[in-house]
């Protein structure tokens, strides 16, 4: 995603695939057809292949282990969500924290957007309280606390420019807003987990060198996707 995004967002691709539809996300064309089975997609995978040699255990690490690699000072850069900043602050290998760790916009300028949703269950016994909690958690105050204490990315512009937040993390305004502006999106459709799984399967095979990185390989994925979506 981080890799395909820049290609998908380039003016040529916008001309080719159409604007990104927020529901279907960057992997699809404006018409809801897969867009990654193209030269651009192959390029994006090639970028990943080129970067693999710099990662300690690229395919064997799970999410938590990549966090660990950074917090032990083993890798220089890691693409991550914001929340881990809070725990890295405690890491003895990363002290003094302010000098050693910085945050920058994802190379290519198109990071993946991720977010959490809060909802109330229809059978909830305390709907009123749940609603009030959500109100509080998404309010400016709640949002600020979440950022300052737990480094959960703010959802409000006003928090980003809040003086308290600016003194705490001066880089936020520049990097975070740029990230949000460029953010690429995952499909927001019910079939997403299935699609992702199919893609991950083939992508790992390409990265493991078991399948060639060609448009044909990606076409096979696109076919599976279309089949899953027709279902």
């Amino acid at each position, binding site marked *: 995603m981080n890799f395909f995004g820049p290609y998908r967002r380039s003016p040529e691709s916008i001309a080719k695939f159409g604007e990104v539809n927020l529901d279907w996300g960057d992997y699809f064309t404006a018409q809801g057809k897969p867009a990654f089975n193209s030269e651009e997609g192959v390029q994006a995978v090639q970028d990943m292949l080129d970067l693999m040699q710099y990662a*300690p*255990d*690229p*395919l*064997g*690490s*799970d999410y938590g*282990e990549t966090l660990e*690699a950074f917090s*032990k000072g*083993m890798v220089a850069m890691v693409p991550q969500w914001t929340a881990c900043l809070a725990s890295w602050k405690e890491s003895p290998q990363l002290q003094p924290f302010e000098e050693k760790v910085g945050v920058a916009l994802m190379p290519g300028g198109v990071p993946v957007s991720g977010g959490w949703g809060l909802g109330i269950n229809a059978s909830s016994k305390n709907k009123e309280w749940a609603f009030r909690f959500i109100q509080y958690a998404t309010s400016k105050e709640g949002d600020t606390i979440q950022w300052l204490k737990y480094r959960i990315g703010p959802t409000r512009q006003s928090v980003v420019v809040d003086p308290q937040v600016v003194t705490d993390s001066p880089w936020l305004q520049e990097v975070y807003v740029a990230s949000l502006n460029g953010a690429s999106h995952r499909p927001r459709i*019910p*079939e997403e*987990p*299935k699609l992702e*799984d*199919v893609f*991950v*399967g*083939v*992508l*790992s*095979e390409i*990265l*493991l060198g*078991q399948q060639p990185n060609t448009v044909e390989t990606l076409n096979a994925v696109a076919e*599976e996707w279309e089949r899953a979506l027709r*279902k």
Partner: protein
Amino acid sequence: MKARTSRKKITGFLMILPLLIVFIGLTLYPFGYMIFMSFFRYSLASWEKPEFVGIDNYREVFRDRTARSSVDFTLLLLVTAVPLEILLGIGIAFLFRDSLGEKVFRSVLLIPMMVPAVVAGIAWKMLYNFEFGPINYFLTLLGGEKISWLGTQFFSRLGVILIDVWQWTPFVFLVIYAGLQSIPRDVVEASLVDGARGFTALRYVELPLLRPLIWVVLIIRVIDALKLFDIVYMVTFGGPGSATHSYSFYIYKVGVSFGWDIGYASALSILLLIAITILTNLLFRFLRFRETLEL
């Protein structure tokens, strides 16, 4: 006399009634439901009502790449892990027999088999860690290279197989060991008198006596290997890609993570059930019920 027999029958029936209720409610009903649902397109994550699709779900199994890869991996487990466990188990049984402290060893080897698989998974995940794992540490001590245990198809599969061997060799060992204990000493001694030497006695006298037991263990292990789930879930989560998807793990993914796709997951489960039923029937041929139960 007749009245008493029939009363006994009624009491007998009443006594198995709770078991019948539990089993019918919790196995027959769900399986009926599953057979039924396997002909429908039905997902708990969507609002749509089940829609009859005939054998589409079954046809899908044969077209599905991940399903095929999970079958591959499960078969690989059957032909590598299970025979290895049997051979090692038998070997260790003979190795430990008559050695100093055999009782202690026997109890100690119970541990891998009894540790909940989830907990064992945590331990192994640490051992396999690329940068800091003790296994890679031992390898570098021996002058080897660090291995990406969970990052390549070959090693992650080997990794899961190793854990399975670690977990279940003790089971084979304990069964064979118990079997060895039950071979009457005089049978072996008689063969020694007849001029058989150590290994010959083992080959021609003890192993044949153990054969039925080995079959029982083998089939139980095969069936259980078909159900491998916990370890995969904890250690590799099926990765990298779909390299270590066991069949059960794939059913879990389809049934739970892909939005509770009940129809397709049911079709996959039915196929597994068929395989297991065949194997279970095979098992019955080797379990000598009549003797053990005095029926």
